[in-house]
């Protein structure tokens, strides 16, 4: 599933096999040139044709993956032909003789078939997410949040869920390379050591390190040591998605670098100034924040509910959950912030506002004033420093500091402003001051600010070393490429957003020749060969020089965090100096906003098939990034739109040429309801020219037009509508609810007036105890069915923030196949739980609702009676079971499923490139408790039946009932906002029973009398009565 054509890769079908690589004669030529036993290694080097290499690695069985390649039979025939030519070669490359042995001494606490959980943490660009990792026979198979850790409380985000696939990614860089040729690690060490020796004389002048944001204390200590040895050495930082504005802002207002820690639990009123704290990992602490914030909206005790005002410049899930959402162009946010600040008593001047803006500001200011100490103003990471400064000032003025927000020293080790840091590095390189550059992680050639022309500068460096888990664009420019160990492969440590330190323990030996940054850095501190385990432990010994260190260490590693290590709260006083004058905004100029992609972040996850196929929360498209503009602009530019602005039935979008500061990029436009006019949002991370099979040829590269001066927002873009189209794979065709009410919603007042507003159409709903006149269905309860356990699920639509974590968790837990862009376009995506997104109201600023839809597990399941083979039938516990080996694939059940939650293996999807079942490494990652489905089989959500069974076995062993909370479905476990509740509805004091008996509970399509076991809790919005409507209809 990859291709090499760069200019605009997306015009080429993603699943096309590179024809060039299949030329028979080239294969023959190479075979002719090849000599001796070692020739297949040289062959690979001879040909830069990746697919040819693949072919070699694959040998024969992998032809199967061609069978499932849905697109071209042609490419299959080619491949088959080539493989014939390769028959002799395949013979030469037969597997080495391998012996399998039983455990001589069985490792203690290993029970084959029983998973073991280890605590660890996932470092993520300057902070970390604490995790529990499920391992089967010491193979990590599933990532969960660490319930004991304040930063996770058991939940994770989608990146953590998907990181397990990166671990097993066959496209990871397999070995050390020098100028593109395979070398031994030892050779690299030698080369570096000689360099180190040379550098010692010059005090390390010309030695530079480049990393992303780092939160590892050990790494920090190592770096200090390096700088002790090499005083002249410099450590530069570059993360494309960095917190520069936040840093600058806190310097402005607080006189130094501090990280704000928000306590949403204490906030009755939250004002977000373009702050996307409900969207994902790029808002540090998202997992905890989302939970705290949503705890304030559960309405399970009393009618109290917090209120969220969002002023945002690019639609986000945070805006979608807002009670009042104000649409602004990126540059207008600062002005609004100034006006708001002035209102709440911060001395500052602001330009004039439009009437709706003014109304909004007045209302918000009043609310804030009324909730001093119980409110919170959150500035956006992607806004100007001024906005941050103003927010700090406002929080101070409102007495929120210490109540709803507190400040700690930066979690990031030796925090700097990345834009500045990388600029210095580049100027040094250009000035020829840099002899040795060690790039630890990252891909600066691809994602450094384009105007710095990093790669040109890089050429001037004498020795360039890269540590990276993939061979990427930067690899082409370095001398030494060292494969980086995945975080599950190497010892390290990190701090979560609140400063709590976690020891990162590996789950598995490095699958490839992976090294950790610690090991590489050790070479510079004359500790060559010291394992990262020793490095990490030594550091912590230095922190805990006590006698009981061993016990302390064991406990910290076991718990997954160092107890009472949260960073101490700093007492700060926000004094707003003179703010830099706001950039003059021309109302007609087209503004550009750069955002990390919702599913592949800054590009580091581009080769992750799960994330590629996870729909972006708002646009529901996969395998590409789009450029969002407002429907109004789309009309103005004469772009094709359906009469309903919310409808994306067509999946071919016109290509826009965006010109920003003289640089151009071609992007597929996306008319996004709620997007500001005269503005365009570009998403980072796609369009990489050098990546794995999965990521190649997907999306456009927004870095091409992202200068250092405008990292997140800029003005004065030129849009030129081309005549060409870009295929977008959308998983949801229709975004409006029409006259149906899949999502039931009311305002808080309405709710208080009428608690059971979700049941306006009582007549449509079947009564709970139907008698003979109403139904001919028997009561299975009387046949002793559903007596013992009756599993049920409740989904709180108020809490769901549409972060997609559940979808990825489900994919990981249930071995769900990835189908590829072309199949998604055909409407064949496989994810078992989908999060429907609905827009209501004007396209300019609609209300947005999210609705997770797994299988409803109906008691009167329409899918069952129509199955000719009884492949889907009911269990005694009320599960709608799917019997894979009985299914013949008539697809009648799916036709008859009113919720359309069933998924069908139209091809051998379980063998699609990216998640295929032939690649050895990928085999390791599968969940051994779940069947891998084959071609022609229907599948769907099972309520994680394997987890139910595991719990039942455990319970039966010690002769007891399954306890409440003992079973958590994958989607429930991962959900940061506790939106999903699962359990036994026979148990009167179970959470799910309570959830199902709130007046807000309702059944989807109740009128069909399917009696779903999955029910919903209707959404309640809490708009300010003073502002006429929940969302300003612009």
């Amino acid at each position, binding site marked *: 599933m990859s291709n090499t054509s760069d200019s605009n890769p997306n015009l080429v079908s993603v699943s096309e096999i590179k024809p060039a690589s299949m030329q028979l004669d080239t294969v023959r030529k190479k075979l002719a040139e090849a000599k001796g036993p070692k020739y297949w290694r040289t062959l690979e080097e001879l040909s830069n044709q990746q697919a040819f290499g693949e072919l070699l690695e694959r040998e024969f069985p992998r032809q199967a993956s061609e069978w499932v390649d849905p697109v071209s039979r042609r490419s299959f025939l080619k491949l088959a032909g080539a493989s014939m030519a390769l028959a002799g070669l395949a013979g030469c490359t037969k597997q080495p003789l391998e012996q399998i042995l039983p455990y001589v001494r069985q490792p203690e606490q290993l029970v084959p078939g029983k998973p073991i959980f280890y605590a660890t943490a996932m470092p993520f660009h300057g902070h970390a997410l604490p995790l529990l990792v499920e391992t089967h026979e010491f193979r990590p198979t599933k990532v969960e949040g660490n319930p004991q850790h304040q930063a996770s409380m058991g939940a994770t985000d989608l990146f953590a869920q998907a990181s397990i696939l990166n671990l097993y990614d066959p496209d990871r860089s397999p070995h050390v390379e020098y100028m593109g040729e395979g070398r031994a690690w030892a050779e690299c060490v030698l080369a570096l050591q000689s360099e180190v020796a040379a550098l010692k004389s010059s005090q390390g002048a010309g030695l530079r390190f480049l990393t992303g944001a780092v939160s590892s204390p050990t790494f920090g200590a190592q770096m200090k040591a390096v700088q002790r040895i090499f005083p002249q050495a410099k450590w530069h930082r570059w993360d494309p998605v960095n917190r520069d504005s936040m840093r600058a802002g806190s310097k402005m207002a607080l006189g130094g670098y501090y990280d704000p820690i928000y306590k949403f639990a204490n906030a009755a009123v939250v004002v977000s100034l373009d702050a996307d704290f409900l969207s994902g990992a790029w808002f540090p602490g998202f997992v905890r924040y989302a939970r705290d914030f949503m705890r304030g909206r559960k309405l399970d005790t009393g009618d109290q509910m917090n209120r969220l005002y969002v002023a945002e410049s690019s639609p986000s899930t945070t805006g979608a959950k807002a009670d009042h959402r104000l649409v602004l162009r990126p540059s207008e946010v600062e002005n609004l912030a100034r006006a708001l600040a002035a209102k709440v008593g911060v001395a500052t001047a602001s330009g004039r506002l439009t009437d709706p803006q003014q109304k909004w500001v007045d209302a918000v200011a009043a609310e804030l004033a009324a909730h001093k100490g119980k409110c919170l103003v959150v500035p956006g990471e992607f806004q100007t420093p001024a906005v941050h400064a103003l927010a700090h000032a406002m929080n101070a003025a409102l007495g929120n500091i210490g109540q709803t927000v507190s400040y700690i020293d930066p979690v990031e080790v030796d925090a700097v402003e990345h834009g500045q840091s990388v600029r210095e590095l580049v100027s040094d390189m250009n000035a020829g001051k840099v002899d040795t550059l060690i790039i630890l992680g990252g891909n600066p050639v691809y994602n450094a600010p384009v105007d710095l022309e990093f790669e040109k500068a890089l050429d001037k460096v004498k020795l360039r070393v890269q540590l990276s888990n993939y061979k990427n664009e930067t690899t082409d420019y370095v001398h030494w490429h060292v494969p980086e160990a995945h975080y599950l492969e190497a010892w390290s440590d990190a701090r979560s957003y609140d400063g709590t330190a976690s020891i990162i323990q590996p789950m598995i030996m490095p699958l490839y020749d992976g090294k950790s940054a610690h090991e590489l850095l050790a070479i510079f501190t004359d500790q060559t060969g010291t394992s990262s385990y020793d490095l990490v432990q030594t550091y912590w010994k230095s922190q805990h020089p006590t006698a009981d260190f061993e016990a302390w260490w064991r406990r910290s590693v076991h718990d997954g965090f160092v107890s009472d290590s949260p960073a101490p709260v700093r007492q700060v006083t926000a004094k707003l100096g003179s703010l830099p004058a706001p950039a003059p905004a021309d109302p007609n100029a087209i503004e550009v906003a750069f955002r990390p992609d919702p599913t592949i972040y800054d590009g580091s996850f581009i080769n992750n098939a799960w994330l590629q196929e996870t729909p972006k929360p708002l646009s529901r498209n996969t395998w590409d990034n789009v450029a969002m503009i407002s429907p109004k602009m789309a009309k103005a530019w004469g772009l094709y739109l359906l009469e309903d602005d919310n409808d994306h039935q067509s999946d071919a979008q016109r290509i826009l040429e965006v010109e920003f500061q003289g640089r151009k990029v071609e992007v597929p436009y996306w008319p996004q309801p709620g997007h500001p006019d005269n503005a365009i949002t570009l998403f980072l991370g796609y369009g990489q020219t050098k990546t794995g099979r999965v990521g190649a040829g997907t999306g456009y590269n927004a870095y091409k037009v992202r200068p250092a001066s405008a990292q997140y927002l800029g003005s004065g873009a030129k849009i030129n509508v081309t005549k060409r189209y870009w295929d977008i794979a959308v998983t949801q065709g229709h975004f409006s609810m029409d006259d149906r009410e899949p999502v039931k919603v009311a305002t808080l007042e309405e709710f208080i007036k009428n608690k059971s507003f979700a049941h306006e159409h009582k007549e449509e709903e079947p009564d709970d105890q139907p008698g003979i006149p109403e139904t001919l269905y028997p009561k299975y309860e009387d046949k002793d069915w559903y007596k013992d356990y009756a599993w049920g699920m409740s989904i709180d639509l108020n809490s769901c923030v549409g972060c997609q974590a559940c979808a990825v968790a489900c994919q990981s837990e249930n071995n769900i196949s990835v189908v590829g862009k072309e199949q998604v376009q055909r409407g064949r995506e496989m994810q078992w739980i989908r999060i429907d997104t609905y827009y209501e109201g004007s396209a300019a600023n609609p209300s947005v609702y999210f609705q997770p839809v797994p299988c409803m597990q109906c008691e009167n399941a329409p899918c069952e009676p*129509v199955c*000719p083979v009884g492949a889907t039938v009911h269990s005694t516990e009320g599960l709608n079971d799917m019997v894979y080996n009985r299914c013949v694939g*008539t697809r009648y059940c799916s036709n008859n499923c009113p919720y359309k939650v069933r998924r069908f293996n139209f091809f051998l999807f379980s063998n699609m490139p990216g998640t295929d079942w032939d690649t050895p490494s990928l085999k390791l990652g599968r969940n051994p408790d779940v069947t891998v489905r084959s071609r022609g089989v229907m599948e769907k959500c099972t309520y994680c039946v394997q987890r139910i069974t595991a719990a039942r076995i455990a319970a039966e062993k010690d002769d007891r009932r399954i306890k409440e909370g003992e079973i958590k479905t994958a989607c429930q476990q991962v959900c940061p906002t506790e939106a999903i509740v699962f359990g036994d509805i026979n148990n009167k004091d179970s959470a799910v029973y309570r959830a199902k008996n709130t007046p807000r509970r309702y059944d989807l399509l109740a009128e069909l009398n399917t009696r779903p076991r999955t029910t919903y809790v209707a959404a309640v919005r809490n708009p300010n009565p003073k502002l006429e409507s929940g969302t300003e209809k612009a």
Partner: protein
Amino acid sequence: MAPIEQIDVRPPKGVRPPIIGPGQTLGTITDRIAGIVLTKRTPVFWILIVAVAAAIFGMLQTAVAYLLAKGVGIWGINIPVGWGFAIVNFVWWIGIGHAGTLISAILLLFKQSWRTSINRFAEAMTIFAVMQAGLFPLIHTGRPWLAAYWLFPIPLTMGVWPQFRSPLIWDVFAVSTYFTVSFLFWGIGLIPDFATLRDSAKTLVVRRIYGMLAMGWRGSARHWNRYETAYMLLAGLATPLVLSVHSVVSLDFAVSVVPGWHTTFFPPYFVAGAIYSGFAMVLMLAIPFRYLYGMQDFITLRHLQNAAKVMLATGMIVAYAYGLEMFLGWYSQDKYELAMVSNRLHGPYSFYYYMLILCNILIPQSLWFNSVRSTPWKLFMVAVVVNTGMWLERFVIVVMSLQRDYIPSSWGMYWFTKWDVMIFVGTMGFFTLLFFIFIRLMPAISIFEMRTLLPQAKVKE
């Protein structure tokens, strides 16, 4: 080739053309019909047609082989549109079959003597059409090797029994019964004619072959007596059967919850539609056949006109059903039904719906005119249009209903692929191939029944 058409000019008003041409005797009938089979020289047009049909059949085999290798993903189907061409074609072919049974069974019961000259090949048409139809349930899972165990109740250790509540299982029983009965009906109808062929065969081999097929038939009165009883009873059985088959097929849809499928009037609506398309197909076959083989004396204008009239009648029923579908949708005031109606009229596939109205309702109205009914080529054109329309009808029902059902977020589209088309066209080739082989090897008109139409065949007191 065929002689110049004598009778085939428009007859004067009020005069009904005869059902058998003048001047025919027992002997001439026998020779004319048996001649087609027993002649040594195969007509050129036959070779051409069979060659083309065989080529198309080859394409079908390729497409099916590729399907089995890769899976149903090569088709356009998806979620939500889980059924596409395969089911559409299945229903279409099954429908076409019905006219054969209707002609041979129901008209027999009603003593419609005009049926005799067309019932034989109408029955053949039924069998071949059902064969095409039967192909689709087999391949539409992409894994026909599983069919063995799921189609029929076979005792297995796993206790994998059919799930008898599923309309698909009803289909299996209905269609296989239908095929069996049609085949038996056709088969015993052929026995006396095989005897005739046996007795008029010139070469030993041919005589032997037809002799075996005739099973030693000798026209004994006792045999004729039992034969007639059995034949009548079969007709009596086939009549409710043919009505049940398409009713069951319609239940595939009516039993489900999909708006646009879930309606009670589907069975009669489908049966009418089936007969409609079936008679269209009879005309599409009869008109070329009588021309190519100069059978105008046996398949006269009378037959064509009657077939046309049946088409007109069933066409009106179908038109009524379309109206009813829309009316019920509106009358229910159910939001999903209303949405279904508006999707028919304004949805992304509305073009197909309007084409359907044109082909199945508007154009067939021309059959009111005698000029059309008694001009073979015009009739032929109308028949083609009607069969197109009937295919569109099934497309509209299957695809347009699935494409937009309950939850707006899961609405989708359906684009058929080249493989869909290849398999559909392939079955047409297969059908034609079978049909012309039949014409060459078996009497396409029932000889012994034709004899009974002659005045001299009656006993005078």
